[in-house]
């Protein structure tokens, strides 16, 4: 009896994706049937891709059907590979070439004001995600992927890491919950991922498990670039252990809170005002700041209400958060604007930083603006504001010269 494997998506609203059906047969060679929206323009190249991939996996007799809604080659490749892996046992991977422009590293303290979630099995949302310039882009393998699609999503996410240019955004992947999420790492660590999000994190062990696995893969593959982690706290226990989690590894650079699961865990619905999560959010900010990492807020789920989002972000900023999640590109601008310092904040910060530099130049131990003494942490906060203002274009890099000094 022949075995049939399928992968991908089809249907009216599906774009930039395909649905692949593979039947491995005993004889009669390869037969490929392509029904593509762009068949007149790309039919031949899709056919060739199918042949090459089947041959790579050593399949000599099969019937392959591709129902294509304009999938790019990396998507076609992933779907075919996923279908193949449903019918044959193989360790081989059919990996597209890495785009040279996708090879970049991240920094520990880079801004993480916004991180855009992309469902890991929906290629059409990936292609243009980078143009919206969120600080980070998350290819999500966890909650946005249906359980029966987890395997094919891993392959798709791997290929997307290779082929989709996110134009400088920090390249993030949210793996599945530990322990099963550990298996996801094989598919992402070798492909210039910058940061791994660890969902539903409850204790330091989970962070360390991820860390060890990353280190193991990096050593095996001879990878030198840093890969940081961002645990997401989504339970009462996680909140209690926040500091332990934040300090579990030197690779933890930020810690986020997921309020949907958290509010469910404490047995109350998530309200607009968010009183029920005030403790958790503050606890998270406090733990993260104590550990010297960035506290990151949850997502705001009403993508059409920009005014409400603005309020939430401002509150988030006032609680001490350094960033927030986005589930739609429209949210990025609002989040950036709100996390960007105001004119008044910038003016004040400029005075403080100037005074600090002058004091240093004069060899003074004490910084003062007017008659007020300025403590070191105030200087630190002012510098952070200046950096943020410069990076968002609100302040020129040479602001000191331009201020006429």
């Amino acid at each position: 009896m022949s075995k049939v494997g399928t992968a991908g998506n089809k249907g009216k609203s599906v774009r930039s994706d395909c649905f692949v059906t593979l039947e491995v047969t005993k004889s009669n060679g390869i037969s490929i049937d392509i029904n593509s929206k762009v068949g007149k323009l790309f039919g031949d190249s899709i056919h060739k891709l199918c042949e090459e991939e089947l041959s790579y996996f050593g399949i000599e007799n099969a019937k392959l059907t591709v129902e294509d809604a304009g999938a790019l080659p990396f998507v076609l490749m992933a779907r075919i590979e996923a279908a193949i892996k449903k019918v044959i046992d193989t360790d081989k991977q059919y990996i597209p070439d890495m785009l040279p422009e996708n090879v970049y590293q991240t920094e520990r303290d880079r801004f993480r004001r916004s991180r855009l979630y992309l469902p890991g099995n929906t290629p059409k949302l990936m292609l243009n995600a980078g143009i919206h310039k969120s600080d980070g882009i998350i290819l999500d393998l966890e909650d946005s992927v249906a359980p029966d699609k987890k395997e094919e999503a891993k392959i798709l996410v791997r290929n997307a890491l290779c082929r989709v240019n996110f134009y400088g955004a920090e390249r993030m992947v949210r793996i599945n919950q530990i322990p099963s999420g550990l298996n996801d790492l094989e598919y992402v660590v070798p492909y210039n991922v910058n940061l791994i999000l660890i969902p539903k994190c409850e204790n330091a062990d989970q962070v360390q498990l991820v860390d060890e696995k990353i280190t193991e893969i990096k050593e095996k593959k001879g990878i030198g670039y840093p890969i940081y982690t961002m645990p997401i706290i989504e339970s009462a226990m996680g909140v209690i252990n926040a500091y332990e989690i934040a300090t579990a590894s030197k690779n933890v650079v930020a810690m986020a809170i997921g309020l949907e699961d958290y509010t469910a865990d404490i047995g109350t619905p998530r309200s607009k005002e968010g009183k029920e999560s005030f403790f958790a959010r503050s606890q998270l900010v406090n733990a993260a700041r104590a550990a010297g990492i960035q506290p990151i807020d949850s997502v705001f789920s009403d993508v059409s209400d920009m005014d409400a989002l603005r309020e939430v972000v401002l509150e988030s900023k006032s609680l001490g958060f350094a960033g927030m999640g986005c589930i739609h590109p429209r949210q990025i601008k609002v989040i950036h604007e709100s996390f960007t310092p105001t004119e008044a904040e910038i003016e004040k910060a400029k005075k403080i930083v100037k005074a600090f530099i002058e004091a240093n130049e004069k060899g003074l131990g004490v910084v003062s603006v007017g008659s007020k003494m300025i403590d070191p942490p105030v200087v630190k906060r002012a510098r952070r504001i200046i950096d943020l203002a410069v990076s968002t274009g609100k302040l020129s890099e040479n602001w000191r010269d331009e201020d006429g000094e």
Partner: protein
Amino acid sequence: MASKLVKNAVGRLVPTEINGKKETPFRGIGKYIPKGREAAPPIVSSSKFPSDGNKIVGSLKEALIKAGISDGMTISTHHHLRDGDLVSNELFRVIHDEIGVKDLVWFPSASFPCHKPIIKYLEDGTINRIEGSMNGPLGKFASEGKMKGTAVLRSHGGRYQAVQDGEVHIDIAVIAAPTADPFGNANGLYGPSACGGLGYALADYRYADKVIIVTDNLVDFPAIPMQIEGNYVDYVVVVDKIGIPEKIVSGTTRITKSPDRLFIADLTAKFCDEAGLIKDGFSFQMGAGGTSLAFGNNLHKIMKERGIKARFAIGGVTKYLVQMLEEGTLDYILDGQSFDLDAVRSMRENKNHKDISVFHCYDYHTKGNYTTMMDIMILGATEVDVNFNGNVVTHSDGYLQHGIGGWQNCLYAKNVILPIPLFRGRIPVIKDEVTTLCGPGELIDVIVTERGIAINPRRTDLIDRMKNSTLPIKTIEELKDEAEKICGKPKKPEFTDDIVAAIKWVDGTIIDVVRKIKE
């Protein structure tokens, strides 16, 4: 098509004869200047018309028979009712079922997907061909070579020009009117099928041999305002329903929700701003597509911030333009087509919202043309090539899918800007060569995509002004390469030698043709 093919001024092979009529290949912009006098309406005498002013006849059939309908005639209709038009389908049903003439030429100002039922009359020979813009199913039908005659696609202005030049003689014009009186005065402002202006029909009622008004809202004489004067009208037919209101006010009038299109719209507005195009007293025009509307929204924001007022806008009018008028950032709307009920209301109530016939205002044979006065012109395209040539009628797979609309005419504006995605699905929008050349690159100034902005090298002034911009200014070749890197390079569609449609330039010359798809 046995006719000889010649290479025209944009390098396309075009025939010198279409549907048995001699044609002139495109010679270059402003190079073809026909002279003399051609079309004129027949001489009529008022004594031959009812002295009580009542021109109502019992049915469409009766009106058509009185108008002398016969084989081979050219029948025109208009697209004020857009995808909600019921009159064109009913017209050809009556012609086919109740009269039985054939070999007609249908000369619509545009066709819509709702006209799909007309395909069966093209198949059975009732209609020989369509001369007019074709959308959706009709375009597909023509692309597969199933139409008996060769389609001729013209711009809005070109349609007027074709009538004046005698290229098209309208035997009977059938005009759907949301409100009319028994004398034939008509407007689109009132009634269950209100659509705004009726400007599309101007050439038709001035030049046609016979003019029939079809209305579902008869009022006593006089129907005011007289957007169409009854003195041009032969017969009035009253029916139950001329249109489906929710389809007349089309769905295109909402700002896009697509983040990518919003991004392009935002980039376009930033470009206009940095290039210094947004200044007191300027004029602009944009379509009613989602991206255009989003652009308008951004434009409005910039104008409000700076206290800038625009003098006039031509539309394609939607509530967004009406809002600008009402908030005082815009002095006048010149309305060629009202896309939603707010536009219809505004035209009714606001004297600064004036209905115009874009067909006439864009016409090549008028004493001056509105489009050359426009500062900012926002247009779309299915494809653009590295020489900035544009295509609006076919898709990259070669199928005829859209009409020209006012697109060609609008290319004459001072700054023609095309906000378009770099690729749609997997299909790159910027090519080495457009599938069908509808507009020469020398008239297209700026392409704005989500991955960069290309300025036509001829516009050294714009290039100069954007020299220090932080916007992603790139060459068109760079954009093309970027698209191909993402999508792969598509194969060209394959065609047979059969010509299924001719694309006219605004002056009546042939700029390109569409060939039959190879199966």
